[in-house]
């Protein structure tokens, strides 16, 4: 069938790149007897290679803190089938018992008034609710009781690709975002390749910087140092430029919770791009001047910013040891800036500068399971570790490499997002958390911020030299200075996906609040015989009885597919009240489930961009297709899903492909009555993420399908 519905192609295939593919007709052999009937129209057939469904990473975090529904007590009934007991003699009024073993009562004061109806401070209500819970236990009909604690999911931004940013829950950022998302009174300088200032994720956030690349050939912007830190591209690889500074800046401060793209660590800080890396790297003199500029000190530009940076990120390094560079770092630190640098990617115990300087906070890189990333240096000067990723692995089985996802651009001026890995990616996590600390307490000096970062670290996974990881929640809590009054039970990470191959992991448990927590019970919902765990005692005075959970999973005998469970851990506080936390676990057995989408195969007229023919295929037919009734002409053969059913394929979030490949689509020249078979090509997710550096990647192109 054919139609004249128009298609919307938002990318253009330059004619020079189009090859005209003459495909041999796939006519069937003729048998004996008369000639085969002449086909007035052409027929095209083939099949599609469709990716299996991706297992989404469970990135949700979960925390319990002591605030509760004022005046309410929740009880577990001995006999769910019996009517809820009358607890009025204990000062409790039944609120609701919808069925099952759980009922909720309201505590009343000595005058018989419901506590919730009175203007009580939360603390008062908590005390009454606690007493009332104890009172409920007097009844034989009640197994256990507690105040109706509030359990909530920590803040998670609604950015489109946040679910792929595993590196943020790893450092307890969602919990930290509950306390602060940053402040525009904090300035972070990024000494790097410059910035792609028009990237949508930086709008409203950039302040004036400078370009200190003094060699015009290396700068590629036609001059030496100048006030424009725009990144013109460094042609770092045969495939194109790195736009390293854009990726690093995105981790520090991409706009968060804006329903698009990715989130940064700090959603509000101001970002000062200082260009110091050109095509051939960065000269010591240029970098030293960039440091001085960021710190508001005299420098080669003969200018200083209106306000110096609070934090300076340097995702750069080298094996040399320049006293000039060290002098610049010392001067900047003395002027009040906190300097943070990447430790280096040589898998070496050797120091890297400037990270190894005493005045600079050195950051090593961990992978998705909090182990040292295989490339990360491990010199003793490394003071803190943060996610840098490992793109040789996909440990969570989400079909993306385990890199750090952030902003990216290309030499064609396009803006998108990419996974990268390196200690370059680790340092900006720490810089962003430093910015959150400063936002939580503007009075803190750089030295105090640095000390908070180091005092609030948490264990990684066998990091060298006793290394520990940045913890955003602990750092921001410490910054506020206000001591908590209730226990706060936190698991890190709060969810874990074993994917198809991982068999063990470690979960850290901590009391980030006041008092003590003592382990009582553990249960799985639903039951999961594939799961086993071991709790380990915590050191004395840590505020919690057990601080480490080792988990092993055994896939033996499990059916193919995804299996998941929630581990409920119940602790008791000093008042013997329960405090619980749920940790989600998931694993995959066997092949990833096949894709169940319907796929629309379209033949698009390259002259008019109209969809001329369409076929619908799916897994039931092994994604085979046949297009009939084709007029002679020149066409583009494409296929994709229309999951949102808006009549277009090729939009972000959909599967899409073009013959013979999306990287190099070719025109099909079809003759009248021609039969063309074997048109096979692959589909891929159009999510504007470049998983492989330098490869051409799909952009949404939105082609209208036939109704």
């Amino acid at each position: 069938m054919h139609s004249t519905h128009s298609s919307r192609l938002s990318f253009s295939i330059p004619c020079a790149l189009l090859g005209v593919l003459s495909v041999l007709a796939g006519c069937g052999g003729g048998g004996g007897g008369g000639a085969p009937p002449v086909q007035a129209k052409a027929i095209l057939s083939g099949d599609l290679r469709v990716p299996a469904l991706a297992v989404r990473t469970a990135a949700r975090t979960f925390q319990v803190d002591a605030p509760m529904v004022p005046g309410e007590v929740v009880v577990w009934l001995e006999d769910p089938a019996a009517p809820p007991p009358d607890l009025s003699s204990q000062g409790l009024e039944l609120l609701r018992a919808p069925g099952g073993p759980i009922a909720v009562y309201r505590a009343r004061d000595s005058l018989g008034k419901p506590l919730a109806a009175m203007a009580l401070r939360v603390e008062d209500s908590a005390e009454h609710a606690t007493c009332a819970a104890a009172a409920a236990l007097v009844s034989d009909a009640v197994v256990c009781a507690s105040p109706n604690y509030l359990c909530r999911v920590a803040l998670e931004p609604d950015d489109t690709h946040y679910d792929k940013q595993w590196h943020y829950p790893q450092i307890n950022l969602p919990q930290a975002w509950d306390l602060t998302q940053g402040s525009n009174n904090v300035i972070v300088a990024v000494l790097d390749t410059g910035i792609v200032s028009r990237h949508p994720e930086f709008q409203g956030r950039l302040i004036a910087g400078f370009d200190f690349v003094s060699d015009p050939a290396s700068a590629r912007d036609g001059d030496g140092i100048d006030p424009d830190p725009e990144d013109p591209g460094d042609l770092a690889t045969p495939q194109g430029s790195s736009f390293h500074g854009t990726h690093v800046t995105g981790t520090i401060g991409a706009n968060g919770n804006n329903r698009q793209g990715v989130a940064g660590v700090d959603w509000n800080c101001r970002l000062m791009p200082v260009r110091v890396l050109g095509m051939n790297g960065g000269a010591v003199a240029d970098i030293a001047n960039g440091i001085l500029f960021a710190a508001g000190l005299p420098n080669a530009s003969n200018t200083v910013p209106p306000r110096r940076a609070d934090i300076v990120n340097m995702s750069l390094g080298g094996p040399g040891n320049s006293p000039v560079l060290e002098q610049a770092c010392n001067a900047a630190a003395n002027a009040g800036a906190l300097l943070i640098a990447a430790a280096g990617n040589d898998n070496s115990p050797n120091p890297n500068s400037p990270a190894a300087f005493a005045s600079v906070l050195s950051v090593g890189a961990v992978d998705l399971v909090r182990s040292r990333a295989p490339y990360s240096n491990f010199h003793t000067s490394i003071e803190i570790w943060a996610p840098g990723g490992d793109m040789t692995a996909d440990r969570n089985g989400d079909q993306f490499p385990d890199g750090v996802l952030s902003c990216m651009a290309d030499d064609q001026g396009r803006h998108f997002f990419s996974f990268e890995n390196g200690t370059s990616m680790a340092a900006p996590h720490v810089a962003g958390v430093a910015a959150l600390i400063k936002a939580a307490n503007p009075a803190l000096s750089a030295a105090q911020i640095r000390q908070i970062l180091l005092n609030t670290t948490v264990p990684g996974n066998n990091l060298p030299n006793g290394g520990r990881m940045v913890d955003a929640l602990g750092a921001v809590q410490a910054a506020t200075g206000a001591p908590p009054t209730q226990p706060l039970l936190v698991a890190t990470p709060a969810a874990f996906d074993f994917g198809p191959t991982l068999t063990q992991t470690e979960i850290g448990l901590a009391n980030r609040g006041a008092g003590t927590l003592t382990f009582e019970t553990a249960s799985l919902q639903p039951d999961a015989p594939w799961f086993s765990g071991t709790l380990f005692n915590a050191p004395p005075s840590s505020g919690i009885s057990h601080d480490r959970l080792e988990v092993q999973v055994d896939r033996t005998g499990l059916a193919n597919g995804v299996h998941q469970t929630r581990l409920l851990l119940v602790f008791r506080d000093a008042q013997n009240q329960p405090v619980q936390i749920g940790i989600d676990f998931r694993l995959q057995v066997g092949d990833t489930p096949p894709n169940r989408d319907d796929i629309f195969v379209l033949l698009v007229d390259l002259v008019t961009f109209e969809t001329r023919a369409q076929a619908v295929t799916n897994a039931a037919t092994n994604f085979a297709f046949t297009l009939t009734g084709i007029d002679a002409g020149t066409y583009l053969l494409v296929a994709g899903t229309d999951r949102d059913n808006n009549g277009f394929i090729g939009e972000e979030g959909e599967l899409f492909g073009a013959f013979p490949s999306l990287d190099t689509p070719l025109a099909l020249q079809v003759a009248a009555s021609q039969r063309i078979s074997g048109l096979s090509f692959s589909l891929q997710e159009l999510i504007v993420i470049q998983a492989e550096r330098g490869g051409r990647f799909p952009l949404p192109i939105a082609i209208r399908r036939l109704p």
Partner: protein
Amino acid sequence: MRNHLPSAVLLLLAAGCAGRDTMPEPEAKEWHGPPVRAVAAANGAVDVVLTAPTLGYRFELQDVAVEGAVAAAIFKLTTPAADVLTGQMITEHRLQIPAERLPAAARTVQIRVATWQDGVHYVMPPEPELAATVRR
């Protein structure tokens, strides 16, 4: 065969390749540089990927020498100067040896890489090292 190829490569190809399909024992130095992998593409080309630990590296195809069933593709890797600082991001360099430079008879392709460093003056050019081998 081009005369400017390092003599070790010439000797290696001449001694090892006549009338044989198998790869001669490499006499060249073992590769100690960044990881290199090579894959034969469907159209007869060979895709080569070098994974550098940081920015600041350059990777170029210099020449392809063919002797019978073995082709030696010579690449030049230039590392950053000792006094330069670079972005600490793992960076892949992807190049392709075009099919037209690899006769069909050359079923074994050796990836040989000569490593230079920016800012260094070389009296003798560095010798290529065997970094990878691929069969087509």
